[in-house]
């Protein structure tokens, strides 16, 4: 058996690190969906800021609040909320799926845990509708 070529012991060798482009996540569908899931958090933060803006306007009085309300009832606001809603829904679906994988063991399968999450979500949504609105 031939021995592999080895550099002389005085030579310094470097570990080769394959360059990874910043667009690595575009190469596969799974990594693309992963990145979309991660960036959905930006829209979660955006909606939290929208809620804060609403409360801030409310704290300043009727004139300020009504001015913001007029903007929030506009078509542009509707489109913005639709975009936020799509990403928040994607966050929700992936969150429930991961919850199933994390907590699904023993008597409860991952599918059962995910299904329970959806049931709780429906109940919470009905609660929000009747309690708040």
């Amino acid at each position, binding site marked *: 058996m031939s021995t592999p070529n080895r550099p002389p012991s005085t030579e310094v060798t470097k570990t080769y690190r394959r360059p990874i482009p910043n667009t690595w996540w575009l190469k596969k569908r799974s990594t693309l969906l992963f990145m979309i899931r991660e960036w959905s958090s930006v829209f979660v933060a955006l909606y939290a800021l929208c809620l804060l803006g609403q409360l801030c306007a409310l*704290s300043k009085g009727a004139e300020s609040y009504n001015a913001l309300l007029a903007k929030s*009832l506009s078509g542009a606001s509707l489109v913005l909320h639709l975009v936020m809603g799509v990403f928040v829904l994607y*966050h929700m679906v992936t*969150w429930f799926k991961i919850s199933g994988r994390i907590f699904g063991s023993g008597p409860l399968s991952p599918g059962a845990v995910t299904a329970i999450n959806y049931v709780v*979500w429906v109940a919470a949504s009905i609660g929000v509708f009747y309690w*708040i609105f």
Partner: protein
Amino acid sequence: MGLIKFIKSLEPLWWSLFGLGGAIAAFLFPAHILIQGVLIPAGILPKDTLQYENFAGLLSSPFVRIYFLALIVFPLYHAAHRIRMTLEDLRIGWLNAILPLLCYGGATAISISAVVVILRLS
């Protein structure tokens, strides 16, 4: 960078806030966005609830104030943690050094603002 090291040492706290915020966003945000942001502006639901007198009356309850505070604060920490983790994957040296401060510091600053706003509600 002792401050950054200290912030990073609080990883269990950030992770817990990330989990709680993610759950709140998953369970509660869709209904709020749909009702407040889509159905009412589209005219499918009446906009009475969002009128100043009604909304101010709703927010007069301390429980509703705490609810809205939780709705704002915890999802912000969820987003802060996720954005920090995602940006760290880009391996931008100078940014990675200050990301924990930017993300968690930003979320904390906005959360404090939210508390001040809530306390200013009449």
